[in-house]
């Protein structure tokens, strides 16, 4: 990297400039070390450092501002309901009775469903790209998976409405209800719009995140772990299981939790397919509602202080949960890839 940096013309440019500056100075004479720029450089440095510090502080300030505004604006709801807000079933804007339980349930169930689908697939893809894939295929494959991450959420939602939902209601839901209907998870009319649809579209959206972090973590597993396993007579799968996956499990866990954080906060695609009904139903075919969806649907139309404050309190709860989940994930990924900058979220 250093070699490729050197021949760049812009690299050499400052040298003649400085050289002329130095030669323009009065000859040194008696003064052995003339001050090249006087104290202006020092002042400039101090100002520069201060300005950059302000930019750095802006990052802290943003987090502070988010917490401050959410806590401040959710006050009325907190005073009206207290902790019961998170246990209440009712969401009745007309009578100003608000309980967030159906939304919390919807967020948790849809995200866990997404993880259930996405985790095995993501780990499979990561293992394939790092351990089995021919080198020529590796670049395009990871590029395509990254491309999935570049698609906006609203486009996923659009695709889900026009392709996934009809597919579910015509083929997958009837099939599931005849084969697995006895579990109680797959009962009810197959409308397509459902908790199941939300879980599937979320899974498609978080696979790139989990698989790219898993890939990154697998790549920092030292090569000699693999060689040691193979030298003991392990097959390739045994080598991957014992030598690679076991060493990387903290980092993989971090990737999974990061995916969970994304799923919890995902708004548009879920709002478009989950059905938006604040009910708690056991069946995955029933419509649901998530914390992010209720914000998307009702925030701009919320009338009344308590209504708005209740919505903001849901936002605050969502924020706190994702902060904890993300912090946990970062710590786990850091323990594995420590010393190497992470590019997973770029």
């Amino acid at each position: 990297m250093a070699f490729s940096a050197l021949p760049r013309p812009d690299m050499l440019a400052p040298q003649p400039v400085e050289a002329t500056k130095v030669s323009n100075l009065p000859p040194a004479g008696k003064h052995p070390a003339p001050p090249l720029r006087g104290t202006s450089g020092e002042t400039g440095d101090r100002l520069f450092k201060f300005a950059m510090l302000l930019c750095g502080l802006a990052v802290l300030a943003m987090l502070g501002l988010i917490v401050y505004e959410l806590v401040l604006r959710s006050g009325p709801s907190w005073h009206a309901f207290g902790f019961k807000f998170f246990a209440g079933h009712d969401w009745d804007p007309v009578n100003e009775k608000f309980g967030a339980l159906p939304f919390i349930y919807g967020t948790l169930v849809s995200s866990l469903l997404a993880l259930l689908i996405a985790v095995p697939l993501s780990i499979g893809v990561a293992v394939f790209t790092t351990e089995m894939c021919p080198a020529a295929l590796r670049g395009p494959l990871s590029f395509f998976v990254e491309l999935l991450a570049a698609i906006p959420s609203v486009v996923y939602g659009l695709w889900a409405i026009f392709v996934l939902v009809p597919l579910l209601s015509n083929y997958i839901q009837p099939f599931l209800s005849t084969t697995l209907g006895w579990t109680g998870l797959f009962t009810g009319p197959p409308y397509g719009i459902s908790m199941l649809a939300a879980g599937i579209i979320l899974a498609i959206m978080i696979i790139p995140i989990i698989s790219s972090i898993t890939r990154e973590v697998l790549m920092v597993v030292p090569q000699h772990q693999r060689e040691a396993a193979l030298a003991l007579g392990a097959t390739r799968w045994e080598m991957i299981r014992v030598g690679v996956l076991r060493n990387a499990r903290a980092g993989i866990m971090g990737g999974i939790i990061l995916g969970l954080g994304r799923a919890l906060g995902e708004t548009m695609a879920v709002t478009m397919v989950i059905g938006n009904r604040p009910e708690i139903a056991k069946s995955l075919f029933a419509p649901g509602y998530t914390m992010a969806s209720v914000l998307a649907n009702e925030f701009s139309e919320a009338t009344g202080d308590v209504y708005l404050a209740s919505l903001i309190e849901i936002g605050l709860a969502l924020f706190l949960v994702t902060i904890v989940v993300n912090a946990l994930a970062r710590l786990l990924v850091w323990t594995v890839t420590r010393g190497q900058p992470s590019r997973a979220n770029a």
Partner: protein
Amino acid sequence: MPSPKTSKASPLHTVAPIALRRRITDHVMSGVAVLTVILVLVPLFAIFAYLIYRGVGSINWAFLTQTPKPVGEAGGGMANAIVGSGFILALASILGVPLGVGAGIYLAEFGRNRFGDVIRFTADVLNGVPSIVIGIVAYAIVVLYQKHFSALAGGVALAIMMIPTIARTTEEMLLLVPQALREAAYGLGIPRWRTTLSITLRTATSGVITGIMLAFARVAGETAPLLFTALGNQFWNLKVNEPTAALPLQIYTYGLSPYDDWHRQAWAGAFVLIVLIVTAVSAVRFAVRRGTFGAA
């Protein structure tokens, strides 16, 4: 399977052949890994193929040049939303890019300490804050003071999302610049601020731009934070203080509407949006590959 015990084993044959069960497991797991790749790629191709199929079929000149027709009437387009999206993104970039790059410079040049770690961790955590929550904050700090929805509020929301990403990538790119280069500059008597701006930052330009473009691409498709900040608009608007149309918002509204013509336009909008984003990302990949630092 012949057992090795039957023949008189020479020392070379004392290692037992890999048991059949283990070999089958090996093949099965390889098959499973390939299967997962296929399962992941199928929806990707399905989404792209369907998007191109519907998008190309739906796009026309009117879509790119006209504003929306009244509800239920066929025709019209999203020209105002395309321009509005560009406008909001420009506002977001003006606010977010200098702050993000500055924070990145601080982290790389002055932040190799505990305090820098705090900022670094905060930026990483901010990256994971749901966009809808950022929307609430922009609503609280801009819309509530202005008393109405505006392009500025949308820009602020998107800027808040851009800053942490830009800060972290800028930092990474600056750290890739060899220390010897900085020392050479100091040796010539160049002040530190000048070294950072004209030498370190300039060397890392292509990487820093990559980070900015990735942040840009990420927020370009964001819908949730615009729902109650920029709000959307059926008409042209290029005023900072007025509600403004945005492409993702229009896709959302039209996609959920009951009209076939609006569905068609939603797909056309999605196609335009994806083309813009993919162009940005590929341009970045191209620029990085021929730039000095290819490590992005």
